[in-house]
């Protein structure tokens, strides 16, 4: 996906660019409203992440101007301010959602997905591998015309595998993607979700292999 980040804190912006790149997303960074406006004119984005306190104005003004254009790109506001005073105003001004700094990336992803689903999709939400059609936005896989809904963690796990078929992912890495850092779970918990995915992928050529001592990988062999 292609994001536009409007944020004046350069360190945070750099960290966000790095972090989203890990998941294969592209992120353009605008440090003020003027830059953001010029970006919007030349490129199209799936999602805009907007900070409120910016050097050349209030992000809410940008939001208002953005909504008056025909552009329907969804906006998620990154706010550091106390939620209860801001919330009402933000959603009234046309923000699709908001997330409070510092945020959990899984939560940001979940919110992006929810917003995009409401808005009717991003360009590249369909992935195909070994006879499996994976719609990451709708949260479904279809195998030979049979549509199977995925639960949230199954979806996120499958996204990891589909992003790099053949690559081995260690249990700790997969856990980082699936569980929040504040949850204390054993590494065995990942097996539950791998088990469920295997069941749902039955009937296709796609398989999740256990690589003893290393982790799991997605293969297309039978």
């Amino acid at each position, binding site marked *: 996906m292609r994001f536009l980040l409007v944020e004046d804190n350069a360190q945070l912006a750099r*960290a966000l660019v790095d972090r989203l790149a890990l998941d294969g997303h592209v992120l353009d960074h605008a440090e003020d409203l003027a830059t953001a406006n010029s970006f919007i004119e030349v490129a199209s984005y799936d999602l805009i992440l907007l900070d409120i306190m910016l050097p050349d104005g209030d992000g809410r003004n940008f939001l208002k101007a953005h909504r008056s254009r025909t552009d329907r790109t969804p906006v998620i506001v990154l706010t550091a301010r106390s939620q209860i005073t801001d919330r009402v105003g933000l959603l009234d001004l046309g923000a699709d959602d908001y997330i409070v700094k510092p945020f959990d990336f899984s939560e940001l992803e979940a919110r992006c997905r929810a917003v995009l689903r409401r808005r009717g999709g991003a360009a590249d939400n369909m992935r195909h591998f070994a006879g499996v059609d994976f719609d990451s936005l709708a949260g479904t896989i279809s195998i030979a015309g049979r549509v199977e809904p995925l639960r949230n963690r199954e979806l996120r796990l499958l996204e990891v595998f589909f992003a790099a078929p053949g690559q081995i992912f260690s249990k700790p890495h997969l856990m980082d993607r699936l569980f929040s850092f504040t949850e204390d779970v054993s590494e065995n918990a990942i097996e539950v979700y791998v088990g469920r995915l295997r069941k749902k992928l039955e009937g296709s050529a796609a398989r999740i292999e256990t690589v003893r001592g290393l982790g799991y990988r997605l293969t297309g062999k039978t």
Partner: protein
Amino acid sequence: MRAMLGKGSIRRRLVVQLSLIAAVLSLAFFLIVRAVAGQAASDTQDNILAASATSIADAIYSERGRISLELPYSALSMLGSISQDRVFYRVIVDGETLTGYDDLPAPAHFPKPSEPVFSTLDFRGEEVRSVAVGRTVSSGGQAIRAAIVVAQTRSGLAAITSKISATSVAVGIGLFLFATLLSLLAAQSALLPLNRMTQSIKRRGPHDLRPVRTEIPGELLPLVAALNNFMARLRAALAQSEELVAEAAHRVRTPLAVVRTQAEVALRRLDKPEDRQALREMIRAVDESSRSAGQLLDHAMVTFRTDHLQETRFDLGEVTRETCAHLQPTAGLKDIALVLDIPERPLPFVGDPILLQSALRNILDNAIKYSPADSEITVTITVDRHYEISFRDQGRGFGDVNTGGLTKRFARGGNVADVVGSGLGLTIVDVVARAHKGRVKIRTNTEGPGACVSLVLPLH
């Protein structure tokens, strides 16, 4: 407001001062009327006495060297016309009493013919007013001096004076009462603009800090100017404290966001278990501090807003649905399903929707935090004699913890040491509930695992 019992009322002062002035004026009126009337009565008596004495003097004549007197009847009857007072007279010729009362005192000196001499004296145990008139009669080529003394008792005069006094007392009292009534009315009307201003300030909502613009008399301008100035400063202080909270949040949360994001990026690149463990703990600490900071700010804001409760009418069902919708993605991360059982019809409530939202979010956030993956949280609103918004989860429940103490600040259950939390969530809920005359109900489910936290609010 009760503590501000008025010390000294302007109205009372006005009335008392105006009444005092009226009392002094009434008394002066009484004294003057009495003095003038008394004087007038006394002058009248003197004039008649003098006329009577003069007419007696005119009746003295000399006949063959002898002085005689034909006492005119009218001289005494004119005195009788004043009242029933007794009349005494004495005619002295050459030091000898010609006629009348021997013992009626005569003046020490012979009065000049044109100047009657008046005096007040005791005669036969009664106060009398007497007049002495001198007259020179020629008898046989000789000038003989005669003195005529006429006296009259004063009881008639006293009766007239006391009658006038009584009337003037009555008129004085009437005047005083009338003036007091007028002063009451005057005080009332003088204070009318002040009352109008008070009413216009009283009618304001708790957040209305606009300057006072009612029409006011010039004397009140300094007071109103001071009041408006004070309200402007208060408004600025409120805005400043809100700004401060927002600024503090910004200053704390942005660096935390940088740390958290960089730690996550680093975590992806690391393989050594001890490094990973260290980073996970770091992220956990960041989450903990950002959560605490968030809830402290939330708590400050909630306290602030409950102190200045702004009441609007809104739909409780809609606010609950919105809150659930916002936390849906968070719940989704753990595959927790939010099951809503909220009546379709509007559930009108009067209060601060932002506070309510904050309370509901805190309850739901807790429920999500303590729920296991792949579970359900049921959100129901029942309308009975109260609104009861319940969040039933399938988590670990509250165990044997004393649930009453959980709403205290920084209090946490004994079975939750492994979950990030500040202990402020339920305090916020409790503060909001109390501000809306409601309460928080916390109980462990009897059937199945988990707990149920409810917000009980009065119907409107």
